[in-house]
């Protein structure tokens, strides 16, 4: 079997010594973690290794010897190194030697027990200790203790990554530390201590506590019975601003909780939430500073009323056009007039409502604009709600008067009425008990009335269908605008910005796997491979770390949407509680 030796590339210039690491016997591979230099006392090394083993729970042992001869090859040294194998008994004893500045190392194994020295092939794999230590293999394994061993068996690379990541404690010792043992391994160049970072670390604990307190206060207020009376929860559920605020509150609770993140995924989730919240608030404050400069709010309020007037005027023109002969169609005059008048009256009501509001609009906008400091998403949600309120007349045309004369309901009734009357026309009926169409013999007067009604409804259908079509299109326009706004909000909410930045700047942190590069070969020397970390693609970064959102827009497929439109069912812009109803 081929023997694999994972060798840290930072140790390639280390002085002679012994190799310590982990032997993974089922894969016949050795993961070398560090080199212990001469001189050392074997008892001390053994004690040190047992200490490390206790802390890291990894079976760290002496695997072999490492000789880096800068001068001529010394016979005595090589003999000495072989003798070392008897002190630290390990099977097999790996001997790696580097001659001067040669790139090709010779590598051999000693097996004492097997009397026939088998020629084993050896692969030397160089790895970057720092990157392997910091990276996280994806997809993350379930680290439940029961499946741990199975996972280790399944993936040898995961085992190797685990070994290096868990032996972090080994790398903590300083280069200038005068301990009993001198080690060479990866060492950070030291983090420059920044006062600001330290202060922020100190300040984060009380800040989190204060935040938790405030959050519990707000949630207590929200849960008061006063706010639980009938109309209010209904209203809250319809306003997307409230949903967004609730969502953000949950995020804040996640961040400020003082529980330590248990694993990598939760840690990344926290960081992602934090960065997305930060960027959201920053964008919101940017928007606010833009809005409040040069009295832009006032200008906005001044233009809002004429726009609303203009929309109403256009609607009136549209209705006038529909009341005549739209596109040369000949409509039922009486019904046409009734419907048109009804809608005209509605628009009149709407305009007077707007004009009643007009003195307060600037003030309302001014206060609403302040909410942008809670985040851009909140501001966008408020905008969406304002659009919903300002186009309430369009919505009313669509829904209003469900009992009396709602266009929609009328259309809806008609389709059902027409279909049942069409069955009557053919002498059949819908059997409710058996869920099928049966033939049925009707009386003469039943047939007469039914046919009469069928004819009337059939001839009135084009008129109502036209009104329905026009107002559905208007309604769809509003729904699409709101949908776009919610899509933007969802994007800001769900984008895992921290992970993306990490992937951009420190691509080795999120590893999808590894890739090997074959280094220069020389005959008779072991195969040399360079192990590099294969970063996760951006698509899978987003997929893995996407933050869950509440969705405001309906999750209808296109066909179901068209079906709903045809049968005249209501399309809501907001979250459909339909999943439960269905």
């Amino acid at each position, binding site marked *: 079997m081929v023997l694999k030796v994972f060798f840290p590339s930072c140790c390639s210039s280390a002085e002679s010594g012994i190799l310590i690491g982990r032997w993974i016997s089922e894969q016949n591979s050795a993961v070398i973690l560090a080199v212990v230099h001469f001189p050392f006392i074997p008892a001390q090394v053994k004690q040190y290794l047992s200490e490390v083993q206790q802390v890291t729970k990894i079976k760290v042992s002496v695997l072999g010897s490492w000789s880096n001869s800068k001068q001529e090859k010394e016979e005595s040294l090589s003999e000495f190194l072989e003798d070392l194998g008897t002190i630290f008994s390990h099977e097999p004893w790996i001997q790696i030697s580097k001659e001067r500045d040669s790139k090709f190392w010779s590598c051999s194994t000693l097996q004492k027990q097997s009397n026939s020295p088998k020629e084993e*092939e050896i692969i030397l794999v160089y790895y970057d200790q720092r990157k392997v230590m910091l990276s996280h293999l994806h997809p993350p394994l379930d680290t439940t203790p029961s499946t741990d061993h199975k996972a280790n068996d399944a993936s040898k690379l995961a085992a190797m990554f685990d070994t290096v990541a868990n032996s972090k404690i080994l790398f903590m010792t300083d280069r200038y530390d005068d301990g009993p043992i001198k080690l060479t391994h990866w060492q950070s160049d030291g983090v420059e201590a920044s006062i600001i970072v330290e202060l922020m670390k100190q300040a984060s604990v009380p800040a989190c506590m204060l935040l938790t307190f405030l959050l519990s206060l707000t949630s207590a207020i929200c849960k008061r019975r006063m706010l639980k009376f009938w109309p209010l929860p209904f209203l809250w559920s319809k306003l997307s601003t409230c949903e967004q605020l609730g969502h953000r509150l949950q995020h804040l609770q996640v961040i400020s909780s003082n529980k330590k993140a248990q694993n990598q995924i939760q840690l990344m989730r926290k960081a992602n939430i934090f960065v997305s919240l930060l960027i959201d608030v920053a964008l919101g404050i940017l928007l606010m500073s833009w809005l409040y400069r040069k009295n832009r709010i006032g200008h906005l309020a001044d233009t809002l009323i004429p726009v609303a007037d203009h929309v109403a005027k256009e609607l009136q023109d549209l209705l006038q056009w529909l009341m005549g002969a739209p596109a040369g169609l000949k409509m039922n005059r009486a019904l046409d007039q009734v419907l048109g008048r009804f809608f005209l009256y509605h628009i009149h009501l709407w305009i007077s409502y707007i004009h009643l509001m007009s003195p307060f609009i600037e003030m309302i906008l001014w206060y609403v604009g302040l909410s942008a400091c809670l985040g851009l998403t909140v501001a966008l949600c408020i905008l969406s709600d304002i659009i919903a309120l300002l186009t309430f007349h369009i919505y009313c045309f669509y829904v209003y008067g469900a009992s009396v004369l709602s266009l929609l309901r009328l259309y809806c009734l008609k389709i059902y009425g027409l279909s049942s009357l069409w069955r009557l026309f053919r002498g059949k009926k819908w059997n409710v008990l058996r869920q099928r169409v049966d033939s049925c013999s009707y009386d003469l007067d039943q047939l007469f009335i039914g046919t009469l009604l069928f004819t009337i409804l059939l001839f009135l259908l084009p008129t109502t269908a036209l009104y329905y079509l026009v107002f559905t299109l208007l309604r769809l326009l509003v729904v699409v605008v709101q949908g776009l706004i919610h899509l933007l909000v969802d994007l800001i909410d769900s984008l895992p910005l921290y992970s993306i930045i990490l992937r951009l700047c420190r691509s080795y942190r999120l590893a999808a796997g590894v890739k090997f590069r074959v280094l220069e070969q020389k005959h008779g020397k072991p195969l040399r491979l360079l192990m590099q970390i294969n970063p996760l693609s951006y698509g899978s970064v987003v997929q893995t770390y996407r933050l869950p959102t509440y969705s405001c827009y309906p999750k209808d497929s296109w066909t179901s949407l068209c079906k709903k439109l045809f049968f005249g069912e209501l399309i809501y812009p907001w979250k459909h509680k339909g999943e439960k109803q269905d």
Partner: protein
Amino acid sequence: MEERRYRAVSGAPIALRRRQHSASCWELAVRGPRLQLRSLSAVTSAVWLAAYGLFVLSESSMVLSAAIFITLIGLIVYLHFVKIDQESLLVIGSLGIQVTSSYASGKESTTFIEMSQVKDVVINEAIHMQKVIYYLCILLQDPQDPQGVSEVVPLFQSSQPRLDCLMEVYKSCQEILEQRKTAPQSSGIK
């Protein structure tokens, strides 16, 4: 290291380069046809002629600059995401199989499959449009079921070599996979 010329399914010339790094390490690279200057200039001139025609009709110079940008961006996208220059397979005994495809711009996308996941490397037959083509693929082991195959990873998807070329690659792969089959017994004895 040796290089042999073969033909792809479409008839385009391709070159298979085999390189044995050691007894248990083969590198097999299939190099597809290079980007032809003729086709590149034909596409560019077609786009620019169309743009010039539109310019004469509409008399707006926006069309011309848009055409230049479209050809530039199109070329970059084509070289960086579409045109695969070389597909190589690195089979390392007892470690795994690495599949690399290098794009014309130099970008490389690599996937490494560990040997414990690899069940076998086989040549498959498939019906593509109106002809039967052969392709090489790696069968991945199902972790739950030792007999089952969880996934099929097709190789050399862009160059699509013919059967004679695939046979060569197949033989080299099997040579190393055979070593793996004999190896566990010896370790079992130990």
